[in-house]
């Protein structure tokens, strides 16, 4: 099993072992840990891609490095902690891994975290939207 799949399984287990309230608490912790943008993207949101599926303005950028690993960058406002949490979870699971691994990553992962009873299902679509855009950007950049 790939490292990203293993990371994902651990998170799925963590989330599902908790009560609904604890799951939200964990999501909040993730939202607080979302790294800020590096200086070269700060103030240049036009370089990033807006994720239209999300209710709040969230941006994502995937950078494929020469060794084929991927650096991920996100921007989401403080008043959208749920969206920040989604971005942060994907960042934790995927950032720094190889493009192949990320492209093979389970598209259904957002639905497996046991959050749909706590967050209306359509909001979860935002997380699938972020994941979809990461994959598309990687495909485009590899040509």
């Amino acid at each position, binding site marked *: 099993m790939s490292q990203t799949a293993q990371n994902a399984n651990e998170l799925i287990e963590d989330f599902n072992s908790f009560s609904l309230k604890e799951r939200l608490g964990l999501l909040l912790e993730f939202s607080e840990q979302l790294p800020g943008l590096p200086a070269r993207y700060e103030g240049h949101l036009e370089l990033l891609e807006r994720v239209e599926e999300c209710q709040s303005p969230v941006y994502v950028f995937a950078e494929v490095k020469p060794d084929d690993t991927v650096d991920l960058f996100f921007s989401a406002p403080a*008043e959208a*902690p749920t969206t920040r949490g989604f971005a942060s979870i994907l960042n934790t699971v995927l950032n720094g891994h190889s493009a192949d691994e990320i492209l093979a990553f389970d598209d259904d992962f957002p639905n497996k975290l046991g959050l749909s009873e706590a967050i209306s299902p359509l909001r979860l*679509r935002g997380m699938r939207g972020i994941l979809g855009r990461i994959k598309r950007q990687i495909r485009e950049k590899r040509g």
Partner: protein
Amino acid sequence: MPAPIDTAAKFAEYAHPEALVSQEWILANLDNPDVVIVESDEDVLLYETGHIPGSVKIDWHTELNDPILRDYLDGEGFAALLSSKGIRRDSTVVIYGDKSNWWASYALWVFKLFGHEDVRLLDGGRDLWIANGQPVTKDETVVAPTEYPVIERNDTAIRAFRDDVLAHLGKPLIDVRSPEEYSGERTHMPAYPEEGALRGGHVPGAASVPWAKAANEDKTFKSRAELEAIYLDGAGLKNGDDIIAYCRIGERSSHTWFVLTYLLGFEGVRNYDGSWTEYGSLVRVPIVKGTEPGSYTKVA
């Protein structure tokens, strides 16, 4: 016992000044045992990132809706919810939230379905409270549960169902969605693809007044004169009108319902919570496409 009315000059010009409070009023009533402050947001984690000290959270998705029926809580559910939030039947409830009190208005409307007497909104909601640097805390509010009575929900006065809407064709309707949703270019909001409908357009005769027109940049409500210009001069509403407001699932139109009822003083305003997600998918009901209200009075 009801808490004092906020006597701010801005509120005095509204039809029901008692339905709004200012930040100053909140600060003066933080320790008032007759007041319960409720935060209700779209983003379910926002309250946890910091809330007004002593406030409790009510989540529209998990706490106000029935998980099986597409309906609201019943009387027992509402009593259990309010007891768990430390609200008495005679408490003054002040609700605030994100997005210009969009979801706070929705919660207030649900409280009114159960006839809770004294429910108010904090003008400017969460965003202005934060922007002005007012106190927030992450401390969990310790709630002493109350005995809230079981009150049967009364849908007749302020809630409209689809048959009510069909019977209402020809009378004033306000569509509060975006212009693209009204004209039928879109069947859902730009960022909410799963809350769609099969057809795009609006209910025949409905005037288009996007809900956010009633709010200022700083999320407070516009002045009475500005609101009259929008809804009376602009949308053609007249004193004594029976009005139905709708949007997509009934939350944005709660904001407009609040404005028409409490700020402008209309008495016969109903919110159609089935809204476009229901109406736009119903078999054999007429719709109108395009930017004009249109009309249709004959229903099959």
